[in-house]
């Protein structure tokens, strides 16, 4: 199957991942345990885009707000809308990233890297410049690794027998949180 067909046919995979991650992050108040690494912080915030239907029948629902509980988005889920974009805060050890993840193409948008001395002050000499570039590459790679680790966690369950139970828990969460 070529890439264009994959994007269309398997679009649900990214959308399910984001929805699962939202549920997972709220299950224990923001902590998600990664095998072998302990807890990382995953918080959904500020900005979310949900979609429903294809082509001309496509509907979009954008939810924004600083301290929002994302009530409209939760209601959207009960109407069968799918999570297409979400602003997520991720933290591990002393590093914290902000990223808007898109479901269909898995783009990383509006990425804010953790602040470190090396990324803030690039000097002019070649060694300092190289140090700054490598520090930023390291932080981008760490972000990709974290997202991939979370995605792997989801996938492992998604293709296993555990998915049935996981799906029941997510349905209960959708029902509960949209009603509050």
């Amino acid at each position, binding site marked *: 199957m070529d*890439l264009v067909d*994959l*994007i269309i046919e*398997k679009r*649900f*995979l*990214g959308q*399910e*991942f984001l*929805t699962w991650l939202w549920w997972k992050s709220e299950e224990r108040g923001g902590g998600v345990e990664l095998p072998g690494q302990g807890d990382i912080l995953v918080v959904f915030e500020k900005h979310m885009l949900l979609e429903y239907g294809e082509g001309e029948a496509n509907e979009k629902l954008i939810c924004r707000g600083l301290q929002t509980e994302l009530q409209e988005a939760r209601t959207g*889920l*009960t*109407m*069968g809308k799918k999570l297409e974009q979400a602003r997520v805060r991720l933290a591990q050890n002393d590093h914290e990233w902000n990223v808007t993840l898109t*479901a*269909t*193409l*898995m*783009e*990383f*948008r*509006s*990425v*804010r*890297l953790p602040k470190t001395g090396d990324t803030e002050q*690039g000097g002019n000499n*070649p060694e300092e*410049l*190289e140090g*700054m*570039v*490598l520090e*930023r*590459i390291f932080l*981008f*790679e760490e972000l*990709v690794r974290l997202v*991939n680790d979370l*995605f*792997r966690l989801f*996938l*492992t369950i*998604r*293709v*296993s027998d555990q*998915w049935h139970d996981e*799906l029941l828990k*997510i*349905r209960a969460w*959708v*029902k509960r949180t949209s009603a509050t």
Partner: protein
Amino acid sequence: MGFLKGTAGFVRFAIEGELPKPFWDFVAERVTAFSFKDIDDTYDEFSIGWVSIHNMFDSQFNFASYANGDYVTLALRIDERKVSPAILKKFVDKEEERIKKEKQIPKISRTMRTEIKERIRVELMRRAIPLPAVYELYWNVADSTLIFFSTSSKAHTLLEDLFKETFGLTLIQQIPYNTAEHLLDEAGTTHLARISPAIFV
């Protein structure tokens, strides 16, 4: 967009194909061969090539500035002359009026109109200043992955073509499904191909 400072937006690519050896000599030779050529002083309409991530005017890569540790860092620069349709229409109309008066004719024929349009387009194109766009990337050589700092699909296509031409290697954009194929084992991937969308309500 944001590789070196500020907020960044990017997509990931996997790189397919065998890396020639010695790798860094190959990179040096190919990057120079496909470096950006300025078109400010020519009449060319389009130019695409590699420049340094630190300076869009540096296409010489002194001190191998494309090498950062085990990563290849490059910027894709595209300069393009463009004429807006409104400007083209204005000057074509003006020229048609001029010719009608000069030749004392009431109407311009279709053939003549086509000829005028093409002539004016070329003239305006020559006067247009090339519009630059720069997109940064880094290539993780050990993992054969590439991060491209733009979410524009037009830029992705240009990158895929130039990368193939420069290095003879194919870029495959990493969307959830093919990322999943890299993350799961064989049994998992087989199962993945069979799953259908879940319903959360």
